[in-house]
């Protein structure tokens, strides 16, 4: 198969760019720990409220000193309805759904989690700035999808 000289240059340049992009993404993910939200815990979608940790939703401090917010998403809102977290501390959001697929997405941050029934999703985030953050559901979940939102209040510790 004949490759034109310019095409060789173009492909070498293109593939090198792709390798570079992937390396940046890979190092950021596996060396610096910037992986997207995920999790490997399962939960019976019909017994969410009877299953730890979802039997007690809301903020709690973990043994290692970081914080966790346990959340249940449901059509068309979140439990707890209002969330308050400390600034400058690592907060892990742990979420599942009682009914259909939702998302828990905090505008202006990288917290953008799919909330899937039967599965538990996690995302750690540190809010540097105090303030009120908008949370929206960005996965279609029914006629009230566009009303499904809440706020995270980040307060000085």
């Amino acid at each position: 198969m004949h490759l034109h000289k310019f095409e060789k240059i173009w492909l070498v340049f293109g593939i090198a760019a792709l390798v570079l992009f992937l390396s940046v993404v890979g190092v950021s993910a596996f060396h610096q720990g910037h992986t997207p939200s995920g999790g490997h815990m399962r939960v019976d979608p019909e017994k969410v409220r009877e299953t730890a940790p979802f039997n007690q939703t809301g903020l709690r401090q973990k043994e290692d000193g970081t914080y966790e917010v346990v959340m249940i998403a449901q059509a068309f809102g979140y439990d707890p309805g209002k969330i308050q977290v400390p600034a400058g501390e690592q907060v892990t959001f742990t979420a599942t759904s009682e009914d259909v697929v939702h998302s828990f997405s905090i505008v202006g941050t990288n917290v953008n989690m799919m909330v899937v029934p039967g599965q538990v999703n996690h995302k750690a985030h540190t809010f540097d700035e105090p303030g009120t953050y908008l949370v929206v559901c960005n996965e279609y979940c029914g006629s009230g999808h566009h009303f499904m939102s809440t706020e995270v209040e980040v307060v000085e510790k």
Partner: protein
Amino acid sequence: MKSIQIGNGERKLALANIGFAYSAFLIGTLCGLLQVFIRNDALTLPGWLDYYQVLTAHGLLLAIVFTTFFIFGFFQAGMSRTIGSFGGKVLRWSWVGYAITSLGTLLVVIMILAGQASVLYTFYAPLQAHGLFYVGLALFVIGTWVQGFALVGHYWVWRREHKGELSPLFAFMTVATIILWVIACLGVVAAVLFQFIPWAFGITDGINVELSRSLFWYFGHPLVYFWLLPAYMAWYVVVPKIIGGRVFSDSLARLSFVLFILFSIPVGFHHQLTEPGITSFWKFLQTVLTFMVIIPSLMTAFSMFATFEVRGRELGGRGLFGWFRKLPWKDVRFTSIFIAMAFFIPGGAGGIINASFQMNEVIHNTLWVVGHFHITVGTPVAMTFFGLTFWLVPYLTGRVFTKSLQRLAFIQIITWSIGMILMSTAQHLLGLLGAPRRTAYTGYAHEDALAWFDGVLSNHVTMAVGGSILFLSAVLLVFIVVQLWWFAPVSKGENLESFPIAASDSSATPTFLENWKIWIAIAFVLIAVAYTIPLTDLIQHAPPGSGRFQTW
């Protein structure tokens, strides 16, 4: 120049597909216009119609129905044109396939209109539509398979009669696209037959949601290549002929299609990067495979511009960019497709961003994604199809694409471009500001959400203006199609439209490129590597299934 006309049977078949495509196009774009108004509080729907019904119809009718029907019409006309008239059997099975595809579509549309299937085109469980909605989807896929196998059968007859020869480029690419489509559909067929239908009809009680999502996206990403490859066929085979050139490299054109079969399927997890249930390792592996599928697109970009430059220089273009001005810009069949290609540059770059693992969190399910697919399928693919329509319909109806219709066609593609630039730029920027996709209203009570109405381009109103222009452009296109179908003057031999097929020198092309067994086998190996372990994990460690929910 005498043009080669195809048989009456294929003519009618292709027209039936294209007619169905444009009917869906008109309704689908009207739905788009309604969405624009509802989202900006300028329209209240009557009680029997809901925003999410309209949105489901918009997505299905444009992304699935318009594209698929048009693609089969194009394939059927092109296969008859390049490897000869269909036999009775091919023709009969093609009609059977067409009937099944149409029946499936109608069933789906009826269910949506009845308010029984406001589940959007991704129909994510455990939202449960009426069982007949899923039956309609299954029929749709089966119908496309029957039409596809009929074309493959036609191709086999040709191969038997031409032992040792490479098939014409158009036929090769058609078969590659059908292979891709059939393998891709296996995932969604498995989900619909074994998960959704038994569950929706009450035979099983629970559904494994994450498994159904993974099977959907196993299908969902190669689906976009099923749209894109016919557009690439137009770029590789049709456009060079229109500008008076030839295919830049036959072997590289074939190689790029082979690479699409290999790498467009084991990549679906890049749509599920922010989901639980799949480990980072498998998400990242599929991210790497996703990047592989960029390579054949890079090859295509090179081939296109090489063809343009070679031809521009033949026409007397001098200097580094002089050839560019020599291209036949006054020919709307060329200009439309050139604009389509230009849109794919930001479209493709945006796709790389979306698939970039953790970067996906910035844009996942925001309006950015909506902007992204409107400048991939919504313009590069769709406008290529418009460019084909301008000559394909008169070619099939024996009418003339008159000067005045050509002028209208220019207005159509320019308005589509302007509308799309406004709408998709607004969507991309709003997405970066966090605005979610798939919402009926935009009235979140928070200053961040109020900012989505502040910018010049990053503004929901700009998006609406763009969407409205797009609808006007769509109506103009349908008007042109109607003219070309029934009202334009009948051609009298001299001015007969032709089906442009560029010469492609395959004398140096290695024959192993057409050994499908090798490529299908490698494709399945790659799929097995990328999917076996994570899917087994989802099945073995499945949570109790989810029940049925109708939340609309």
